[in-house]
């Protein structure tokens, strides 16, 4: 069954507080109380936000307040109800609402909605210790996607979240079996539609979301620049745009890993923010799925860099992205129909959905 859903994403600092508790904890407590079918809390490796303070896990002092991303997906009505509760939490950072389709339970052969035909971003949610025929579920899913010719997949490790409505927080000591992980893959709607029933057969309780994206670059080749979006939609509400850059720790630009060079260049260009999330497993193109090795010096895992900004800024940021991803990387563009930036008491933007849909 395909459900029309909303994806609520918050970008903030690890040390942001809501009164006496951490903002991340207050948010996830709320997701747990509301029994959100799937939510994941991810820790970033590097990034900057509205105040343009660089945070990076490269340097000890600057790793003090690393970026955090929380994602929650549920039906439209339930996310709208959740927004009312979220307003009671003292929030800083960026909050976005995006449209997504959720598939759960029995996934049979299916026809994707028309707008997902071109390119689709699929996110599969599995538990950390979930296994498929004695193989870790994330590895089994990556293998399947690789064999079916999907261009790439990135596995992001959650540290907290809800899975099928149950709160699962990672502990320092423990199996953390059900703490959710996200497997993000981008491919043509047709290929994704073919692989979906197989995923349904592979996983015990499959939970998948699908989002419409535009592929801008593929393995360094320019496919199409991000579709120019109007700054405001027909009803006068601001429209935002999101770029996601999928690269690898191994991909270098000018001797630096692409995502690090990208975050620094974007910061000095005056972009509103960027967050790099390091995956723990994944693949790009022909190379088989892999993670890091126990004995290694340089890292090999995939990385996703997320850039959210107004459409005119995105056009400028894409030039930087394009320049840094001449040899590697997949770049996608998405419309963000609702965004709110919150810095202290200043709230800019509104979390009502802009109905604009970009022309194909």
């Amino acid at each position, binding site marked *: 069954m395909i459900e029309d859903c909303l994806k609520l994403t918050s970008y903030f600092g690890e040390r942001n507080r809501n009164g006496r508790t951490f903002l991340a904890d207050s948010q996830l407590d709320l997701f747990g109380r509301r029994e959100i079918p799937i939510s994941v809390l991810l820790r970033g490796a590097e990034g900057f936000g509205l105040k343009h*303070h*660089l945070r*990076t*896990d*490269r*340097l*000890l*002092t*600057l790793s*003090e307040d690393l970026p955090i991303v929380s994602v929650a997906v549920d039906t439209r009505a339930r996310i709208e109800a959740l927004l009312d509760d979220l307003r009671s939490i003292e929030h800083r950072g960026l909050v976005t609402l995006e449209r997504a389709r959720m598939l759960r339970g029995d996934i049979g052969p299916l026809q994707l909605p028309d707008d997902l035909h071109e390119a689709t971003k699929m996110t599969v949610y599995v538990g950390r210790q979930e296994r498929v025929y004695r193989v870790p579920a994330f590895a089994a899913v990556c293998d399947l996607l690789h064999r079916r010719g999907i261009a790439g997949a990135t596995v992001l490790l959650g540290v907290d979240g809800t899975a099928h409505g149950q709160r699962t927080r990672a502990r320092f000591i423990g199996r953390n079996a059900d703490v959710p992980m996200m497997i993000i893959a981008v491919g043509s709607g047709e290929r994704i539609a073919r692989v979906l029933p197989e995923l349904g057969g592979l996983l015990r309780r499959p939970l998948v979301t699908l989002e419409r994206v535009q592929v801008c670059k593929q393995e360094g080749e320019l496919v199409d620049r991000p579709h120019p979006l109007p700054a405001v939609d027909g009803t006068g509400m601001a429209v935002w745009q999101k770029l996601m850059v999928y690269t690898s*720790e*191994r991909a*270098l630009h000018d*001797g*630096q*890993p692409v995502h*690090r060079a990208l975050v*620094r260049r974007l*910061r*000095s260009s005056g972009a509103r923010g960027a967050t790099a999330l390091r995956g723990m497993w994944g693949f790009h193109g022909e190379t088989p799925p892999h993670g890091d090795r126990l004995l290694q*010096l*340089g*890292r090999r895992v995939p990385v996703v860099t997320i850039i959210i900004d107004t459409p005119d800024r995105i056009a400028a940021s894409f030039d930087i992205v394009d320049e840094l991803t001449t040899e590697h990387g997949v770049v996608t563009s998405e419309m963000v129909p609702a965004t709110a930036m919150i810095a202290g008491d200043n709230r800019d933007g509104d979390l009502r959905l802009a109905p604009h849909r970009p022309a194909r």
Partner: protein
Amino acid sequence: MTLLVWVGVVLIGGGGSVLRFLVDGAIASRTGRSFPYGTLVVNLSGAVLLGLVTGLVLNRDGALLAGTAAVGSYTTFSTWMFETQRLAEDRQVPGLAANVVVSLVAGVVAAALGKMIGSYL
């Protein structure tokens, strides 16, 4: 008297690490680069200070407070090593080599310089 000295070590030691956090943070966020300039500046300035303190020939308590407590908590070996390992993870071979060699060579020179200044004061 000894209790006072130990309380002094606690307070000055805490102050030294806070100072490092501020200096490192200010430099690192200003340069915005992946090379750990902040830690390098902290360690080199610490080496000058420690050289200076030993050059001054202080009494025992004075040396404990100024050397071990203040400079000892201000400088950091573990951060230097940690950030060098992080450079290796990013395949930053020139940066990695520079971080090790410059810290070592310039560090010894800085300590000698501090000691020389101290002995003239």
